[in-house]
């Protein structure tokens, strides 16, 4: 059990089946990492198509990203790839989750024309303080 807690332990069943004991958290992390990598592969494949041939359904788990601009879709794919590489080297998955949540939030804001215009507008006049 100590070996399993520290990483993994191999056990063999009576019928010869090899089993691996490992902390559940590690397996869950690998599953999440796998799902995210699959999502990234799907996104990269759709980004290889001309923009007029990209149906929302082709984006798979990242369908929400279809509302983003071309440049932002590519930036999301690059940032996700970088974050996954770091996470796969043994680091926490939380930065990847945070990145995806940030981009989902960005896509929601982008999808609303009034909010998008307001957030894009530069404020070149001095803003005034206001009591909330």
């Amino acid at each position, binding site marked *: 059990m100590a070996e399993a807690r520290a990483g993994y332990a191999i056990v063999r069943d009576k019928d010869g089946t090899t089993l691996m004991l490992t902390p559940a958290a590690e397996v869950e992390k690998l599953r999440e990492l796998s799902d995210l990598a699959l999502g990234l592969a799907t996104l990269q494949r759709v980004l290889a198509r001309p923009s007029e041939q990209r149906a929302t359904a082709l984006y798979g788990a990242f369908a929400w990203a279809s509302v983003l601009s071309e440049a932002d879709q590519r*930036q999301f794919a690059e940032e996700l790839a970088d974050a996954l590489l770091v996470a796969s080297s043994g680091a926490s998955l939380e930065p990847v989750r*945070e990145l995806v*949540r*940030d981009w989902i939030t960005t896509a929601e804001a982008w999808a609303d024309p009034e909010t998008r215009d307001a957030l894009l507008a530069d*404020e070149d006049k001095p803003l005034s303080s206001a009591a909330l």
Partner: protein
Amino acid sequence: MTAQPEMMQRVKARLGKDPLDRSANPRRVHRLRGTLGTKMISGKVLDQWQFELSSAGRIWYCPDREDRVVWVTRVNLRHPRETE
């Protein structure tokens, strides 16, 4: 804002104390990315963030770390998806 005075007081306290802190509730504080990730305010390029006021309400803001000011850039008490 006057329709939700208690909520806005909580938000004011929250953003005034630590506008970049996600630890209390990572699912309610987000930094915008890409094109919306920064905003020019009075000649300064500042990161743009969003705080989820409630299930429907959102507030967007740009913290100026140098001047220790938080500029509120938009408040929406109704989530955009409700209109779809």
